[in-house]
């Protein structure tokens, strides 16, 4: 149902740590461009008139609906709109990658989920079909003629682990649906530094085409609706790691799991007997350990693994009706959020809570770091402990130093105990991801200039239709979905395909009231599904 943070990152611009995009806005303001471009005066004005834009000489297209990001959140939105009867000519998608899973794939591969690895999502979480049926499991069972897969779908999660699809199944599914809904015809490769209110309603969206970063050829779309499908902008590198990097200039030995770090596995294969410190107990840590163990067996790397837990979970905890399963250091949960957040009773409960703060509190309880209970992972760590190459360390790393012998010394401190230190060759941080809203230039600009507001968990405040609070302009609306809307009123798990599709449906419902699309009732839903099955245009 839900996904690992590692597996559901909406598209945004992947960059090095620190969010360099924040500075681009200023660059744009400073740079009045010859031959047509945005003047400093325009960049500084929060409302643009048609005359202003016309005078600038920039080419303006008129497309009623524009989605910014171009990743899975945009994809879910566009798919729902197309199924609701909006023609492709009325939608524009702006993003860095031509496929809806471009950014997602980068992050997945960095965190060791390549095409043949399985995601942390359920059979019916199909990005390529809003109905989710037939699911990935049924498809795989028929393709491989595997009664065992079929039996697994019946028995999950009681008698066996959940069925989880391979990353390749997701990509193929998304490609097929993209062709069907004419995704390419709506797509513009580029980035969006600014969205401005239009005098008289709607918005202007500024696009910097990917092939020309000089800002000399910016384009502008005039739209009634804007959707922001912006996810993780950058891998969040912890402070002590940043400190290490800046003091030593070394970012080869100390990496975040979402940064490309294939070089570590290559070096381990070349020089056997090295030591790796894996920080954090999120599921990406187990994905990394799975890779290390696979290489250990295949290439005889003899790697030693230290696994650092900040909180070591001894066993199940909590009262009978709110009892988190746990063992061997981990809290167990099949998906990123407890399952009932995906439309079930917990979502109802969230809806009934009065304040943002109460919701934030419950969100922290049901969305805390947990890993799926997979047999393979449990077997690997049991074997590693037995054979002595997998060691658990409890505490938090409080400092990293580069030694003269080329190794990294990590100081581990634990409350009430004297600090200890470890000497390792590599440090891979898998403590989870954090989203800093202002890392993305267009959102930072929206907060400063368009009146967007933040919620109790520091993300974009949205209403029940996922419209960004404070940004309405005449008949124009700005919507958002994805991780930047975590803490939304439905507390929809925004790290999940399911959540993105649900948010898209709620937005469509609102747009159908505006008369922009058709409501998705029983008839349209069944007909739409039939078109999808027959692979005919919606």
């Amino acid at each position, binding site marked *: 149902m839900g996904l690992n943070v590692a597996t559901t990152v909406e598209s945004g611009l992947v960059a090095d740590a620190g969010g360099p995009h924040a500075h681009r806005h200023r660059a744009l303001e400073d740079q009045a461009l010859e031959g047509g471009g945005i003047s400093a005066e325009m960049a500084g004005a929060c409302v643009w008139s048609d005359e202003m834009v016309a005078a600038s000489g920039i080419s303006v297209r008129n497309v009623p609906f524009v989605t910014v990001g171009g990743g899975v959140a945009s994809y879910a939105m566009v798919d729902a709109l197309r199924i609701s009867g909006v023609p492709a000519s009325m939608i524009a998608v702006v993003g860095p990658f031509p496929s809806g899973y471009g950014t997602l794939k980068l992050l997945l591969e960095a965190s060791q989920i390549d095409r043949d690895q399985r995601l942390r999502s359920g059979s019916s979480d199909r990005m390529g079909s809003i109905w989710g049926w037939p699911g990935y499991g049924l498809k795989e069972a028929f393709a491989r003629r595997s009664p065992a897969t079929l039996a697994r779908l019946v028995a999950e999660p009681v008698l066996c682990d959940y069925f989880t699809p391979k990353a390749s199944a997701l990509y193929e599914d998304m490609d097929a649906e993209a062709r069907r809904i004419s995704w390419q015809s709506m797509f513009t490769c580029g980035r969006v530094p600014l969205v401005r209110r239009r005098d008289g309603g709607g918005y202007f969206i500024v696009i910097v085409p990917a092939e020309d970063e000089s800002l000399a050829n910016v384009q502008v779309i005039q739209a009634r609706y804007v959707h922001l499908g912006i996810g993780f902008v950058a891998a969040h590198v912890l402070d002590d790691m940043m400190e290490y990097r800046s003091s030593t200039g070394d970012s080869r030995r100390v990496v975040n799991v979402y940064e490309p770090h294939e070089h570590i596995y290559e070096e381990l294969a070349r020089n056997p007997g090295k030591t790796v410190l894996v920080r954090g107990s999120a599921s990406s840590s187990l994905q990394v350990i799975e890779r290390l163990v696979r290489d250990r067996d295949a290439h005889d790397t003899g790697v030693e693994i230290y696994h650092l837990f900040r909180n070591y979970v001894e066993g199940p905890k909590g009262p009978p009706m709110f009892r988190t399963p746990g063992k061997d250091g981990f809290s167990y949960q099949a998906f990123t959020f*407890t399952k009932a957040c995906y439309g079930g*009773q917990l979502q109802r409960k969230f809806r009934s809570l009065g304040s943002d703060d109460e919701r934030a509190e419950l969100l922290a309880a049901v969305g805390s770091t947990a890993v799926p209970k997979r047999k393979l992972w449990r077997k690997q760590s049991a074997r590693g402990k037995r054979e002595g190459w997998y060691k658990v360390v409890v505490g938090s790393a409080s400092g990293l130093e580069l030694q003269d012998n080329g190794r990294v010394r990590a100081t581990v401190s634990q409350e009430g105990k004297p600090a200890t230190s470890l000497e390792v060759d590599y440090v891979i941080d898998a403590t989870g991801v954090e989203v800093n809203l202002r890392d993305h230039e267009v959102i930072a600009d929206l907060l400063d200039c368009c009146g967007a507001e933040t919620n109790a968990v520091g993300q974009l405040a949205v209403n029940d239709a996922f419209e960004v609070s404070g940004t309405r302009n005449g008949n124009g609306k700005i919507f958002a979905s994805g991780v930047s809307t975590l803490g939304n009123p439905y507390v929809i798990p925004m790290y999940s395909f399911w959540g993105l599709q649900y948010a898209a449906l709620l937005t469509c419902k609102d747009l159908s009231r505006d008369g922009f699309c058709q409501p998705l009732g029983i008839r349209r839903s069944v007909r739409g599904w039939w078109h999808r099955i027959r692979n005919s245009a919606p």
Partner: protein
Amino acid sequence: MTFSLRGRIQTRLFLAATVGVIWTAIITPFLPSPPMGSIGGVGMVPMQMSKFMVPIAVPYNPIPFDYRMTFETLGLMALVGIAWELLYHLLQQFRWDKDWPPLFTLVALVPEGIVLWYVIHLTHVENGTWALTSSGFPMFAIHLATTWVLMWLFMVGPMKVVSLKWRFEGGELV
């Protein structure tokens, strides 16, 4: 499945009223019909008066009586099911994920079937012995089991196509 309580109840009633009704209408003539007299209910005398007011026996046509029994069983399954759903919802509270795996729904056929067998006797939908040797048991068992499995199959699949709201809002239809 991630049901809310309302969603559970609505789903059961919807499935019984659609898949249940259609399947019962199709399957009933093919079920092993119990001998006369074991079917209870009111007005079930397979006799007619001749025009001379002399009772005569007509050739026994069991089908209307079978329909009565299967539809009443289906109705009771839905109705008693509301109480079952309350129990399931309570049990769901002890699960961390607050979900209800499809396998649970499938195997619930066994306890629900046993209770329903007693309920249809208590309500005189079925007369005769409660023992499993009852001549009405094969009909009851085949009807209930096939209906149940079909309702389950519809729930884990096509239901999502019929109602997107159902998929995204805890099994709720309205």
